[in-house]
Every structure is written in structure tokens, then in C-alpha cells.
């Protein structure tokens, strides 16, 4: 018996380190190998050309369109010239610190709502205060700020306002609709079902057209509501239907025992909802609600079609300038980056939140 101990041999070279990883992940089977080769070829064709166009050949200092067109890369000078128009619309130039502050405030409001520490009972009041402050900043007329009519608002602050005010007002409405749809009163249930199915079956565009064309007909003569309010109402009604369906799913996930326990304690319907059912149901539906917010943020771009000056319309207006024609790709990439930054961060957060909430439920 050989008891002499020998030094352990290192594993074979092709099983450790980078080579092993490449073999396992990129070339594990013939099909995989072919696909990897094709993808690498595709990337080699497209990525260097794209990087060249985006960064290396790009032009940042040009002062006129001709200079920019001579360069073969992207014309970021166009963005440098037009970024205030795209971001803030036709808001008076000297007062643009106000929409900037409003944007920061709204973004901060969204970020704070994501942090768990803020999930207290005073969060709705916090939102109300924040939104009121944004309204004061944008409109002005008080505290020495000059008055700016909302037909001059535009760009990123307007997109954020449409989305946050939309979700803030749609949430209570959606909650009531969900409670109405699961109610035992047949009249209330029928009304809520008709509303929800009607709104969910039609595209947002038709609701925007409806509100911009039909609301003036519905109101008595002489009563005018301006375009922005009409669009905001359409967005609120649209979001409320989707929030109602999501909350209804949450309500259905609550075990019947909770309702029965509340009844046995003698709680009334509203007391049951307020203290027992809704806290549990709302916690369950937070991830789907966040995805509704992301979808709403993207859908605010549709107000372009009824002529409201949001971020997408601001980009189109910047492109319409006769002395800077033909730079659509740069303008659209710029605002795509802004939308992507907001939506991607919120969706990453939502996925992390889902994971954290799921572990909460498991014992």
C-alpha cells in the first residue's frame, strides 16, 4: 500500500478559468457554437460603426447645421443648441429654474415613495404637499413668482406632471371602482363593471380624442376647461380602470377567513376594508401598480396627438426648425434616453421590491 502522499495535481488547463467558461457558455454544443459565431460577427459589424457614429466622429462644437452635416457622426451640437427647448418647452427663458425645480421635486417624490421608510400613513399627505408645491412653482402668481399660463408649459416637467398627477388622482378612483366591482350591491357592481370594461377595451387615443372633443360639449355654454386639464382627466380615467383591475386581483387574493374574522368582530364594511382588507391587499399589488405607473409614464407621450407640448412634441418642434433639419435620430435618441432612464430605473426597483416582498410572506 502506497502511503506516501503526493502533491495534488492542478486540474487540467481546459477546465479552469476563462477557457472553461467559454467552453461551457459559448460553445457547449454545435448549434450554440454556430450561433455564437454569428452573433459575434453581427456585433463586430454593428458595434464599432455605432460607437463611431455616437461618440468618436460626433460633433459637439458646431454652430450651424452645415458644419454638423460635414461630420459623419452624430450631431450632438444640435442637442446642445436645442436642449432647453426640448426639456422645458416654451416656458419663459428666465423663469426656467421653476420647471427645473418642479422636475427635481417630482422625481424626488417618486424616489421617496420607493423607499420603504416612507411607507407610513402620512405618505398621501406628503404627496399632496409635493404636488401643491409643484403647482405653485409652475403657475406662479403668488410669493412674488410671475404668472405663467399652462399653455406655455412643456417638455419634461409636463410629462412628469401628467404622469404623477394622473396616478395620484387615479389611485383613489381606482380603489373605489375595485371595491364597487366586488360589492354585493348589484347596481353598484354593474356600473363599475361597465365602466372598467368600456375603458379597458378602447385605446388611450380614443379617450384623449373623446375628452378633447366631447368635454366642451358636455359642459354648459361659456364654461371652458383648457386643453391640459382635458388631457389630464382622460389620463386619470384611463389609469383608474387599470388600477381597479389590479386592486381587484389583490382583493381576491385575501383569504375568506379575513372577511369572516372581521365580521365576527362586528366591524362594518368600511371598517373592515380600512383596517383589515385593504392594507393586506395593497401590499400584495404594489409590483403590478408600479408597472402601471411605468406604462402611464410612457403613455403620456400620446398627448402629442391632441397637441399638448410634452417631451415628445418638444422634440418634434425642435426638429421643425428650418435651420437645423434632418437630425431626427439625435433628437429622438436624446428623449429616448430620458424615458429609458426613468422607466428602466423604476422597473429595476420594482423587480427588487417584488423579491423583497415575496420573502416577507414566506415564513
Amino acid at each position: 500500500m502506497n502511503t506516501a502522499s503526493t502533491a495534488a495535481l492542478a486540474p487540467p488547463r481546459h477546465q479552469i478559468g476563462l477557457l472553461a467558461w467559454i467552453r461551457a457558455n459559448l460553445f457547449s454544443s454545435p448549434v450554440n457554437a454556430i450561433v455564437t459565431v454569428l452573433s459575434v460577427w453581427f456585433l463586430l459589424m454593428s458595434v464599432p460603426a455605432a460607437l463611431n457614429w455616437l461618440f468618436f466622429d460626433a460633433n459637439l462644437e458646431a454652430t450651424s447645421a452645415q458644419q454638423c452635416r460635414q461630420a459623419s457622426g452624430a450631431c450632438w451640437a444640435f442637442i446642445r443648441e436645442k436642449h432647453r427647448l426640448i426639456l422645458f418647452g416654451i416656458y419663459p427663458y428666465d423663469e426656467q429654474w421653476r420647471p427645473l425645480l418642479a422636475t427635481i421635486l417630482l422625481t424626488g417624490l417618486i424616489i421617496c415613495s420607493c423607499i420603504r421608510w416612507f411607507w407610513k400613513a402620512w405618505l398621501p399627505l406628503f404627496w399632496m404637499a409635493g404636488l401643491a408645491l409643484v403647482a405653485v412653482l409652475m403657475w406662479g402668481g403668488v410669493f412674488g413668482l410671475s404668472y405663467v399660463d399652462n399653455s406655455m408649459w412643456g417638455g419634461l416637467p409636463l410629462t412628469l406632471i401628467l404622469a404623477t398627477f394622473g396616478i395620484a388622482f387615479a389611485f383613489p378612483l381606482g380603489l373605489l371602482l375595485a371595491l364597487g366591482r366586488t360589492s354585493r350591491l348589484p347596481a353598484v357592481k354593474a356600473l363599475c363593471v361597465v365602466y372598467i370594461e368600456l375603458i379597458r377595451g378602447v385605446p388611450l387615443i380614443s379617450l384623449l380624442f373623446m375628452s378633447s372633443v366631447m368635454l366642451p360639449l358636455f359642459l354648459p355654454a361659456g364654461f371652458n376647461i383648457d386643453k391640459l386639464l382635458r388631457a389630464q382627466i382622460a389620463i386619470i380615467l384611463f389609469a383608474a380602470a387599470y388600477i381597479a383591475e389590479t386592486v381587484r386581483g389583490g382583493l381576491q387574493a385575501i383569504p375568506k377567513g379575513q372577511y369572516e374574522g372581521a365580521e365576527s368582530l362586528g366591524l362594518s364594511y368600511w371598517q373592515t376594508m380600512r383596517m383589515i382588507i385593504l392594507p393586506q391587499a395593497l401590499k400584495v399589488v404594489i409590483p403590478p401598480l408600479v408597472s402601471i405607473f411605468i406604462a402611464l409614464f410612457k403613455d403620456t407621450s400620446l398627448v402629442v396627438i391632441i397637441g399638448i407640448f410634452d417631451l415628445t412634441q418638444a422634440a418634434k418642434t425642435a426638429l421643425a426648425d428650418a435651420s437645423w433639419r434632418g437630425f431626427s435620430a439625435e433628437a429622438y435618441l436624446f428623449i429616448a434616453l430620458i424615458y429609458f432612464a426613468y422607466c428602466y430605473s423604476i422597473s429595476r426597483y420594482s423587480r427588487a421590491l417584488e423579491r423583497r416582498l415575496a420573502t416577507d410572506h414566506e415564513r
Partner: protein
Amino acid sequence: MASNNPVPRKPRRRLSWNDPFTRSIIYQVLILGLVAVAVWYLVSNTLYNLSARNISTGFGFLGREAGFAIGESSIDYSPRDTYGRAILVGLVNTLKVSIIGIVAATLLGTLIGVARLSKNWLIQRLAVAYIEVMRNIPLLLQLFFWYAIITETMPGPRQALNPVSGVFISNRGLKIPALTGDGLVWLFGGLGVVLVLMLCLARWARYRQQATGRIFPLFRVSFALIVLLPWLAAYLGGGGLQLELPELRGFNFVGGLTFSPELAALLAGLIIYTSAFIAEVVRSGIQAVGKGQWEAAEALGLSRARMMRLVILPQALRVIIPPMTSQFLNLTKNSSLAVAIGYPDIVSVVNTTLNQTGQAIEGILIIMAAYLTVSLSISVFMNWYNKRIALVER
């Protein structure tokens, strides 16, 4: 001991606030009353405003002459036709975009969803990048981007890109070869006959397998039938088929199938956007099937294709179908964004009609009725399919 429990009597209804039944009646009457008052207020305002602007109500305007041209239509239309026919053209356009979009987005989305689950690191990362980028940028922005690419960066027809023979991409749109000839009707007839034949063959094959255990090579036989029979029918019955290639004549192409820049941009945007969502749905469906199923199927010695078809996909489909339905509905509703890039779908046509005749309410009602009908049909079909593949539990 004889049981002394009488049958519990129904509670007596008392006409008082304390009786829950009476209370519910009172609440419902109050709520219905409020809604009725609100509706009456709105309707009376509307009627007053309409008469003040001299606009008539009713759908009579549908019989009047339209007077505007429509960019592209699949059925015959001229500006002398009625508004009703114009709206029909818009509806056909919407259905065309929806059907092509749904089929293409499902295929592309399934491919990317499977790629997202691939063990190949490069493919998986590329799929993730595609999904994240396409999901987080608004659809309208993507449509504007594609439309700008096609109209601004594509060359004119004379210098059109020619990736494959017969396919031309220029700023006048996409042109592909078209099938024409008298045999076309026979081709589609033959296809229909083959489909019916396949259904009968499938039932017979299942019966034979249950009775004797012998497996019929259904997939290969159906594939052969689909490939051979329709062409045979076209050549034997009709006058044969020709492939019509687009040719450059003057300033544009003639012949072949045309996808105008608006249609091409709309389809590109819709398909790419929706395929990212469908990829996520497919991924979550396949991941919902437990690992034990994969391992058990492998232990039984099933090949990978059989494993997917018999074990994994039936279970994955149950999880995939409901969210997939809502993605189809979203695509149909999102096709209404065509009004922003000038493709004449139903919203665009009704919008023009609305502006010309002032019949706002009827126009909006037509749009809502059209979309509700399409949404409900898709929902009903998918619900039927869902019930068919649902797990039958106690």
C-alpha cells in the same frame, strides 16, 4: 330523541335603516339616482350645445359623400364614396395591421423569449438588452423613429437597397415580390382542403395510437401535404402562378407587394415593441414549469423535441395564454397610434370625418364600438382556447 331543530326561517324584512337588505336597496336607489341625474345633465348640455352649433345628431352623415382621399386601402375606395365606406376602409386597415402584427410579434417574441433562457451567455445577454431597451421606450417614440429612418435615411427608389433579389427598400417603402395568376384561388382552396384533411388525420392518428400504440408521423405528413398539395391544385386547376417581381420604372417601382413607409414604420414599431413584452411572457411561462418536469422527461428518455412538445409546452401554455391575450389586445389598441404617422387606420379616418362633419359623438361612438368588438372577439377566442387547455381539477 327527536330532533327539535326547525328549518331556519328567512329573516323578516323590516322597513327600517337597521335592516341590511333595506339599506342596500336605499343605497342602490340613491347611487342610481345620482348617476341618472349626472347623465341627464350631461345629455341636456350636449343637446343644447349641438343645436347651438347647428350640428345634427344621428348617423345619417354616414351616407354623405366623403370627399377626401385615403392614402392606402385594401378595398376599392374613391373620394366620391360615402363616409360609411371610408370608415370601412379604415377598419380593414386596422384589422390588417393587427393580424400581421400579432402573427409576427408572436413569432419574434417567442424566439427572443427562448433566447432569453438560452445557456449561451452571449445570446442571453443580447436578448436581455433587446427586451429592456424595447420595453422602456414609449411606442409612439419608436414609431416616430422608424418613420424618420425610412423617410430620411433610406435612399430614393433609384438607389434602393436590395438585400435579397426581388426585395427593395427605399424611402418610398418596402417592395417584395407578389404571387399573382389565376391559380391563386386554387392555391387558397387547396390550403383549406389540406387544413381540413390534417384535422381528420390528427383525430384518426390519435384514435389509432390509443387503440394500438403505434405513433403516426403526423408532423412530417402534414408538412409534406402543406408544401405539395396547394401548389399541385394551383397548377392543375387554374392557369398557374407567377411571381411578380417589382421593377424600377421611372421614379418608382411597379408590380409586387408594397408596404408604404407609414405601414412599414407602423408594423416595425408595433412588432418590435410587442415582441419584447411577449418574450417576457414566454420566458415566465417556461420558467413556471418545475425543474422536476424537465428531469423526469429526461429520465424517461424523451428527445428534446418530444420533451418540449409533450411535457413542457402544454404546462407552459397554461401560464402563457392569459397574459398573451392581453398583449394581443394591447397590440390591436396600439395600432391606433397610426394616426400620428399618417397611416389611415380607423381612428385616423374617423378623426378626419369628425373634423369635416362636426359629428364628434357619433364618431367617437364608432371608434369605441369598433375597438370593443375587436377586443371582445379576441378575448372570447382566447378564453375558449384557455378553457380547452386548462387543468381539469376536482
